[in-house]
């Protein structure tokens, strides 16, 4: 089987796999955010950037090839990842202490993984009202990181096209595909794939918040790194 090295360890891959896919199969953790195993790579957040033969490449979009020398766990890369995560925090309104996704939020766990202890940049503090029009689902746009996973899940799996991104640059934001702009006027339902893919706390089942006690939440039990490394073969 073909292989490359990741931080000095051999990682086997099959033809067509990306670096992050092969690393995941091998139980090797590369910090990532928008790369979801069930969807084609998007390459938008750049958190999974690694050095491939010395060049920075996003590991979710770069195919693995024989003999590559991949570096991920370096001080410089982790510093850049930290800055990327800080920028995502300050672009939205992320109040972890009052957020029901705390303990099961990929952005939060990534922040912890990378040692983010402060905002690092000035807060943008955008005005983003919540959409509570749907009887069973709440949208809290304050926490959107524009990963587009819900857009893709709704389009590719649910075939409903409920979500889209609108605007450019700092004004880019998630919208709902209805003339009224309200979720209640779309075909969104609790069974949709789009309900399950949000890495942060935007798409929420109503009236469920805080029902899981501290200590039993997803990332309390195992961090994303621990979950992945638990599957590593000796």
């Amino acid at each position: 089987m073909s292989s490359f090295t990741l931080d000095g360890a051999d990682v086997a891959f099959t033809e067509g796999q990306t670096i992050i896919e092969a690393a995941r199969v091998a139980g090797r953790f590369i910090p990532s955010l928008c790369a979801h195993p069930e969807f084609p790579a998007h390459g938008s957040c750049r958190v999974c950037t690694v050095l491939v033969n010395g060049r920075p490449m996003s590991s979710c979009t770069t195919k693995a090839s024989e003999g590559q020398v991949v570096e991920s766990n370096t001080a410089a890369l982790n510093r850049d990842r930290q800055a990327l995560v800080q920028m995502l925090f300050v672009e939205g309104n992320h109040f972890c202490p009052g957020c029901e996704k705390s303990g099961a939020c990929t952005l939060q766990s990534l922040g912890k993984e990378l040692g983010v202890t402060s905002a690092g940049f000035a807060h943008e503090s955008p005005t983003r009202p919540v959409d509570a029009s749907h009887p069973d689902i709440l949208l809290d746009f304050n926490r959107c990181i524009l990963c587009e996973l819900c857009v893709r899940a709704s389009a590719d799996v649910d075939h409903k096209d409920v979500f889209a991104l609108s605007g450019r640059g700092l004004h880019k934001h998630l919208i709902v595909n209805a003339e009224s702009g309200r979720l209640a006027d779309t075909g969104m339902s609790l069974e949709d794939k789009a309900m399950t893919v949000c890495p942060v706390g935007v798409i929420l089942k109503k009236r469920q918040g805080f029902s899981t006690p501290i200590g039993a939440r997803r990332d309390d039990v195992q961090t994303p790194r621990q979950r992945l490394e638990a599957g590593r073969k000796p």
Partner: protein
Amino acid sequence: MTETLRRIAIDPLSRVEGHGKVTLLLDDAGHVHEARLHIVEFRGFEAFIVGRPYWEVPVIVQRLCGICPVSHNLCAAKALDAVVGGVPPPSAVKLRRLMHAGQLLQSHALHFFHLASPDLLFGFDSDMARRNLMGLVETHPELAKQGVMLRKFGQQVLEAVYGKRIHGTGAVPGGVNKHLSLEHRDEFSKQLPQVKQWALGAVALAKQLTEANLVRHAGFGTVPSAMLSLVAADGSLDLYDGGLRAKDAEGRLLFDGLDASSYRQLIQEEVRPWSYMKFPYLSALGPDAGWYKVGPLARLQVCDRLSTPLAEAARQELIASSPRTIHAPLVFHWARMIELLHAAEDIERLLQDDALVQGELVSTGERQREGVGVIEAPRGTLIHHYEVGDDDLVTRCNLIVSTTNNNQAMNEAIRSVARQYLDGHRVTEGLLNHLEVAVRAFDPCLSCATHAMGQMPMEVTVVDSSGAVLSRAERGAS
């Protein structure tokens, strides 16, 4: 009237969390006519909770305070029990009571040992550099250790039931989110004999210090007023639930057994332009005569008895210490330690109940648009009121926190102390110290009342009848 008064302001107060400023207004004869405890920060939880989903509320509003967040968590959840139309199952109620007792125990230990005992042990006028927790550690290491260990026990109970020692997520609308584990139950049961022993020692110490200081500072900040508390149907003190009962300054019953949701008929809130903290009063008595005290001293005199034997015996001793209703702020500390003992005994009783480790945790029913919760927080009666739209977002919020309920009482105590200790027109170190001690008897934290953040520096200014500043002193945060 005010144009003929002089003004003195005190800013900042140390060991009172939040930010406070005292102004002393003098009349033409140089006597203190009025004392104003200004609360100059504004946190605005009532405003920014509007538009948020109701199930977030118990977790968000508890951030009002780092000393007694559990009280806000529980009170909000109680208000929202009504919104989700549920009556929390027996297990949930008992787990909430356990949380509440753990909270009371740790908060009272902090208030007395860490914040107030240095004043009482070393004297109000003693060196500031020594009159603090570190001074206590140096001179009374065993006492300091007991205070720390008592607080630790309360916090361990919280961690077990509410997920964290500070700012957990235990109570949810309609119930709670976890049981107590068997391991924790056994661990706490083992620790309780020692905890009760320490609590008994704390009651004895608080009694001794209170009585000694009352001799030295006769009439210190004492102003008679009505008192308010929650009381169970059988007349015993109920810190978690029950009906509202009020007594007048002589201990005569004003009302009893009133439902929490009637608070708007019972209590009005007056706004004064010089403070962000409102001034509540009993509607029936009007704004001038209707102000009241809440908190340990009020509770022990409003109720008929405590439901636990050791604490009830201690309460009887406190009541017997005076032929009349007690209004001296310094006695709050004695009452506080009796409640700490009560909390320890209550935890012991609750731990024997299997409902803590098994049983249904949440109950919901027909959705309602409004809910009121009332609880006896460590500092006194706490009221949360929410209105929620059909879309599950909060449309209105009103909080009357314990410190706000004591607002006029603190102002009156400050005026009384200033009259006694103001030396001419100068703000002396002694005056600063005495004013601080008076505020701290009621409350170490003004932040939740104004919903303000940070440590509390304090400033005192004396202003004469023409508005000119005669004297000003300030002290940084400790």
